């Protein structure tokens, strides 16, 4: 399946899901796209972009870790530290490349709060668009694939979506198989899956 078709399939799967976005405390004014995720609430709020490790443990490099650390949002309204898991692309990628340009800056974000797990009583965030406080123009949170292409210029020229051609992922699958259980188990499973 090609990259655009996979993305379309993922979006279709989520948009056809059983859950519709619920109204949440931060839903007013949000124009976030619904994904029909667990516990989904549209959420537009102002916040400060933080290096989570700095925020909770006081380990604070000047540049928020230059892309090597997970970033979060400290929400203005209640001071809550919101962990950001995802950007707006339906392509298996996170949001650090989208948040890093705003390290320690005041921003407004629009996206989805998700999650409803009894053992983990928190809401997590998918950022879909972001702008600096006071700015009019939004930026889409979709920088990751371009950043990947810049980090992997040779692979980026090959056909297909990034995750099919990422050299490190390819190497791990070549070594341990798609199931991670070794090539022998993988071969038997593929024979079962595609008789």
């Amino acid at each position: 399946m090609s990259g655009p078709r996979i993305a379309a399939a993922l979006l279709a799967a989520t948009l056809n899901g059983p859950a519709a976005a619920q109204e949440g405390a931060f839903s007013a004014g949000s124009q976030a796209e619904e994904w029909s995720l667990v516990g989904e609430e549209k959420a537009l709020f102002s916040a400060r972009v933080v290096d989570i490790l700095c925020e909770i443990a006081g380990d604070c490099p000047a540049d928020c870790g230059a892309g090597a650390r997970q970033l979060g949002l400290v929400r203005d309204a209640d001071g809550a530290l919101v962990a950001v898991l995802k950007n707006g692309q339906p392509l298996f990628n996170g949001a650090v490349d989208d948040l890093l340009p705003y390290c320690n800056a005041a921003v407004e974000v629009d996206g989805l709060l998700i999650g409803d797990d009894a053992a983990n009583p928190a809401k997590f965030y998918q950022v879909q668009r972001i702008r600096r406080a006071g700015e009019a123009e939004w930026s889409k949170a979709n920088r990751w694939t371009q950043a990947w292409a810049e980090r992997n210029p040779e692979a980026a020229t090959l056909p297909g979506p990034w995750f099919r051609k990422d050299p490190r992922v390819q190497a791990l699958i070549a070594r341990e198989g798609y199931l991670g259980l070794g090539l022998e188990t993988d071969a038997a499973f593929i024979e079962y899956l595609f008789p």
Partner: protein
Amino acid sequence: MRRLLVTLAMLPSLAALPAAAAGERVRLTGEAIDTWCYFSGVMGGTDSVVGSAHHTCALWCAAGGIPVGLLADDGAVYMVLKWEGDASVTGGDAVLEVQSDRLVVDGVLHARDGVNYVIVDRVVENLGLVNLTHQDYDVVPPFAIEAPGK
């Protein structure tokens, strides 16, 4: 006294700095997972987005910089903020290598606003991929494995 006040006045505003906490030393046992698929339900229920069925997707998501978590046996997830021997937890080699593996780790736990965060300073043991979910779910998502010859 006046010199002390002047010195204090020259320091950065303490109010502007994050309130750092010492954290709690812990030993955790659990599976390295992809937190987005686990919490969002985008690929299905939580039982289907762990282990061998979801291994390839977990590789994609870890390489994609989605936060890696450690799923303990009681269902608690510990979001990884640092990993022994690797400066990067946003797609770094070390977190990529351990996806779907059951691990015993030592580290420092912080909890805030309902989320557990862990700084892993030592992997005590890697028990490998022992959660054989493909026996129940095949692969999640179904396109994780391309048909041979494609």
